[in-house]
């Protein structure tokens, strides 16, 4: 039986389409269990079901208090200093009260002076219901089931920046160019990124895995409290139940895990 060139091309075309679709369908059917679990866990690993941080804003007094926390994070995570606000990459930084909580009290000129002038630390909120995870087309950003950390797989990210549009907190940065020349001192313990991928705070998953608290919390000297929201006896739960705290844009239903201790 001979096959005409035209028919061959038709069959080849249809098979190619079916092939691509087939791979997709197979991956969808695959058993959900792709989280890394094939390594032996360090016995020192901190155990928690939903990590959170409470920031005691009264304990941040001098610019040095903020700088110490920010540098601790940015230096160990190889966050570059590009020097151009448009291409800026930041994992934790400061914003004014008005800009951190725009929906909380829009344009209220009568607010306490200390709040009006105070810088607030902002970072990824590790939302319980993260919009960035919802929109990511490749699962490059995902919520870790074991402890609720919103993770980033920089090797899978295609750089479509849908997550940046989806995040209502402006927590995500994109590598508009190769970041390596802008890293002052590379920390060989943590991967540096390449151009074209999105990055953000990952709650120091690598430190939690070896029993350490996140770098910012450690550097804050007690001004930031890290703990498990699911554990009623944790220090963070005690603090949250005894002092007045607020979260950023709670009306969006994202359920952030970063709390700001405002009152005594």
């Amino acid at each position: 039986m001979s096959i005409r060139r035209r028919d061959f091309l038709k069959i080849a075309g249809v098979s190619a389409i079916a092939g691509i679709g087939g791979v997709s369908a197979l991956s969808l059917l695959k058993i959900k269990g792709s989280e890394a679990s094939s390594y032996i866990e360090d016995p020192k690993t901190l155990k928690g079901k939903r990590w959170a941080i409470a920031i005691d804003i009264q304990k941040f007094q001098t610019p040095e208090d903020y700088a110490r926390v920010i540098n601790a994070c940015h230096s160990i995570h190889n966050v570059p200093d590009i020097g151009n606000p448009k291409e800026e990459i930041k994992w934790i930084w400061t914003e004014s009260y008005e800009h951190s909580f725009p929906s909380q009290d829009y344009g209220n000129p009568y607010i306490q002076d200390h709040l009006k002038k105070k810088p607030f630390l902002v970072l990824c909120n590790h939302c319980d219901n993260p919009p960035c995870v919802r929109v990511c087309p490749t699962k490059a950003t995902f919520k870790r089931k074991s402890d609720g950390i919103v993770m980033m797989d920089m090797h899978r990210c295609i750089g479509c920046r849908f997550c940046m549009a989806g995040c209502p907190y402006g927590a995500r940065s994109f590598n508009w160019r190769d970041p390596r020349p802008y890293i002052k001192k590379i920390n060989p313990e943590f991967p540096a990124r390449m151009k074209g991928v999105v990055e953000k705070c990952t709650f120091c998953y690598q430190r939690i895995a070896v029993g350490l608290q996140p770098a910012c919390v450690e550097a804050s000297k007690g001004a930031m409290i890290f703990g498990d929201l699911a554990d009623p006896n944790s220090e963070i739960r005690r603090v949250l139940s005894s002092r007045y705290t607020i979260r950023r844009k709670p009306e969006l239903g994202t359920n952030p895990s970063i709390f700001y201790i405002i009152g005594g």
Partner: protein
Amino acid sequence: MLETALKGSRTYWIWILFLLTIIGIGLIFYIKQFIVGLGITGMSRDVSWGFYISQFTFLVGIAASGVMVVLPYYLHNYKAFGRITILGEFLAIAAVLMCMLFIFVDLGQPLRVLNVILHPTPNSVMFYDMIVLSGYLFLNALVGWTALSSERKGVPPPKWLKIFVIISIVWAPSIHTVTAFLYQGLPGKHFWMTAIMAARFLASAFSSGPALLIILALIIRKFTKFDPGKEAIQALGKIVTYFMITNVFFLGLEFFTAFYSAIPAHTHPFVYLYAGLEGYNKLVPLMWLSNILAIISLVLLVIPQLRRNEMLLAIASVCVFFSLWIDKGFGLIVGGFVPNSFEKITEYWPTIPEVLIALGVWSIGFLVLTILYKIAVSVREEVGSIDIHH
């Protein structure tokens, strides 16, 4: 039939050469972007989507509008559209190709694009966008090519084709609805968080697409022996008129909701786009140009005596096309990011390399369109048929 695209007049080859030159320039700058990164564009941490994604959004509309000629012809047996149905289908093919390319050039890691298929994520609207766009491309290629082949042989198209035609009619609105869903479901993006986004997208698509088709039909009539027909062009003119009115009405609804409620987060993007906010006003002249073009087009379209004049209809179509290109192919995306999540303002303006890459993609689209139209027109000239029996 492809061979008919290889024989053409001097003008035809000059046009092809011109497009290839622009594609070449775009490619050179794309290579630069590939090496350096998206830092060569005007996008930023705050305005993280720009010219590429807005072109994509606009072109999905152009692609979807193919249904405006396919539906009356196949479902209502509107004979006048028999001659231009193929033009609508081929325009859809070129537009979807451009959409895909604009997504591709916007990616930070383009070599990983297959991750969307390797790690399918049904909770992401992007996943559905990939499905509907590739499906629509397939449907239009199948229907257009098969119908044209039958026409060349002088036989009616095969019966099974009708099923695909009907699927493509239902499919067309879905591509633009899904594209609107990329934006309208994002918490905290007040400008996009509006239930009428998808409807507005369809209204602007069904006016800008047929407007482009009118312009293309007139060009074809001028340069070839094939006449798409006065009646068909006038019918397209009516479609443009009604959908342009609908589009402007929908935009009015957005204004009412934002300004009567007076919620600052909802008014700010509109104020930024049309008047400037806190001294930032880069887009204001463009947005007003869009408004003025819309008004001119409506005057020319709504008054029947003016619309019936083909010259004025052509002018109205150009006005509609550019008005909506500014509105959707620029302002809509940028407005979503200004002000940013901190209610601060970072402005956006595309860089020269970014515009040249975009022009390159448009030229690829027009090259595909030219080739497809050349084939369609050659078949028509060859068959010399006035009445086409499908």
